[in-house]
């Protein structure tokens, strides 16, 4: 691989995609709040979704936490805690494999119902199809990497992880990825591409996960004045003032 390619793949491309990811979400949130939904198809088909969807989601949540661990936490930290490489890898691979299997089984179940339930298929957009394809590629790639981890030739915590963090330090080290095995490179590129796609798909629902529900009072009151649609008031468009607003 030439140096130019390495710089493009592991430096330029990630920054482009991350920029699209961030700006895309801001744009989507500002201009398409109405479209910001999980677009559930449970009303059409529930019997497969009932097991496949929780399996996929809980699986992918565990996978996400695993990535936070593996990519986010430097090896020196776990070393300082006295966790040996062997223990770490055993944990990562076993938990990762279980989570991965949950995810992929749930994913296949969801894919099956999406393809073979006519109503669900009818409600599937082109963007959904692209998203499913990319998500499938990323998940499969991740599983291959986990499996290859059993053989244990490559320690991603000394390569991919450092490269990943370097992007966020704005001190990118693309050369670290050049030495990574092809399957890791493939997984990373596919995931980065998926991030660029993210704001334009139904995946945006991840960022409005309703954790606040635990803390808020059950009954929500809101004044007529508080919100009047998502868009800011614009010149030339008078509000429909119906009854006099109450002084607060």
């Amino acid at each position, binding site marked *: 691989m030439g140096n130019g390619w390495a710089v493009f793949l592991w430096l330029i491309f990630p920054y482009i995609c991350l920029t699209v990811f961030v700006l895309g979400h801001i744009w989507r949130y500002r201009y398409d*709040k*109405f479209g*910001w*939904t*999980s*677009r*559930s*198809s*449970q*009303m*059409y*088909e*529930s019997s497969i*979704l*009932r*097991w496949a*969807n*929780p399996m*996929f*989601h*809980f699986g992918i949540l565990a996978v996400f936490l695993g990535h936070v661990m593996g990519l986010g936490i430097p090896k020196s930290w776990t070393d300082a805690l006295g966790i040996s490489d062997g223990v770490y890898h055993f944990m990562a691979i076993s938990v990762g494999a279980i989570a991965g299997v949950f995810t992929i089984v749930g994913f296949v179940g969801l894919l099956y119902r999406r393809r073979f339930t*006519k*109503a669900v298929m*009818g*409600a599937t957009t082109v963007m959904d199809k692209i998203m499913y394809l990319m998500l499938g590629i990323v998940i499969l790639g991740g599983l291959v990497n986990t499996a290859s981890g059993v053989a244990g030739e490559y320690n991603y915590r000394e390569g991919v992880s450092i490269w990943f963090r370097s992007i966020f330090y704005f001190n990118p080290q693309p050369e670290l990825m050049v030495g990574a095995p092809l399957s890791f490179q493939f997984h990373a590129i596919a995931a980065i591409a998926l991030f660029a796609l993210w704001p334009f798909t139904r995946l945006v*629902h991840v960022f*409005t996960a*309703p*954790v*606040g*529900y*635990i803390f*808020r009072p*059950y*009954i*929500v*009151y*809101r*004044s*007529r004045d508080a*919100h009047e*649609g*998502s868009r800011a008031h614009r010149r030339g468009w008078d509000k429909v003032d*119906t*009854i*006099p607003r*109450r*002084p*607060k």
Partner: protein
Amino acid sequence: MRVMSQMAMVMNLDKCIGCHTCSVTCKQVWTNRSGAEHVWFNNVETRPGQGYPRTYEDQDKWKGGWTLTKRGRIKLKAGGRLKNLMTIFAAPNLPGIKDYYEPWTYDYDNLTTAPAQKHMPVARPKSLLTGQDTKITWSSNWDDDLAGSTQNTHNDPILKQVGDKIKFEYEQTFMFYLPRICEHCLNPSCVASCPTGAIYKREEDGIVLVDQDRCRGWRQCVGGCPYKKMYFNHKTGKVEKCTFCYPRIEIGQPTICSETCVGRLRYLGLMLYDADKVLEAASTTDEHGLYEAQRNVFLDPRDPEVIREARLAGIPDDWVEAAQRSPIWALINEYKVALPLHPEYRTMPMVWYIPPLSPVVDAVGETGEDPERKDNLFAAIDKLRIPIEYLAGLFTAGDTVPVDRVLHKLAAMRSYMRDINMGWEPDESIAESVGMTGQQIRDMYRLLAIAKYEERYVIPAAHYEDAHKLENIATDCSLNVEGGPGMGGMGGMDDSFGSDPGGQGPDVPGRPERVRINLLNWNGQGTPTGLFPGTPPAPGGTS
């Protein structure tokens, strides 16, 4: 005391003829869209019957509303906050589209495009979900007027509570209609179920709304609402619900279902209530006590202390004044003839019902006895336990005492007013027998039977003089325009009468000539040619 105001509705079921005009006009105004085919903010159920969606009242199955814990506190029947979040990926109590019905259209195109053939071409039903041939097996009103009751009605959850005493033999059947909208509850379980907090109760008028920009389609409210009046739009992925026609209410007009009600059976008005007492009332241990408990949450708008507190709470004086004139207050707390629908769900519903006397009157009438005589009616009320237990199952958590009391009042009004209408001396003992005075009976009669527009709808936002004009549109003949046929002749109408409805009439400005736009067939995407003035029409128009 924390005074809040609530727009509320009462429906007088004796006057409902089951014409579904409310449902149709509501649908035309609010849910005449793709993805909302099954969404009926207003629907009319024949009772006994399964209701819509099927058997929605069976909370053992659907887990809607609130339930009491052992410690006497209310919690969502579907489970607490953590369970709600943990089940978010597959909402456990979500009705499927088949519990409503699979929306369909007909292959009308085939009628005009089929080649010459021996048999008449037919328009086959096509599923709107799959686009394929479908068999219509259920819809929002499949069991209208007890249709198919021998097959279906035994699934009615309320009927199961009453027991299998009701036989569906023609001569023993009773039947009435139950129009339903969102209850705009004081303690709404849909709001409590929403993980995002997108559903809210408006501080000013208590109308419960879904913020469409914040709804993320987690679907927990659909299961959370025991009345199943939260509808998941399967195209937008968001939940929609009855809005109490808030844009109309805000300018003092009645909801569209009320405005167009042929029987004029709906009443709209304000209720003041003490928000601090709602939770306690909803936690009443005895289900039979919930009706009284909710009545005690309401505040007397003529009480000087309430008026003072209302002012402090920022409720305008004209709203308090409207609350004093509210027909809802009169029906619920003065005449005490209106009852809540399923108080046992503990949501403190705010659309109440005057139970129908008609099953009783019909039963007396069939015997050949005088169905206007107090003694006959009272005896029949005491004897007709099954219909009354059924009504109690709907309105008082099974307690027949309040239902009996209401029906006695309605029967007394009937007898008392019959004497007056016949020119006879009114019998004050009839009024006394239900604990009312003759004047009270006459007042109640005026509100229930005469039911003047201004007395049915007391909506505090001024401008209801305009609303009255609107009713004239609905009740007047549309041909009675200046020079129209109703005014003698076809003057002015001969040009446009019978011509293309989209064609340019004398009063239609700007519409391109001969372009017809059928918004019913418009899928909401793109801009049909000729929708806006100024675009040159393409031959053939839209779609």
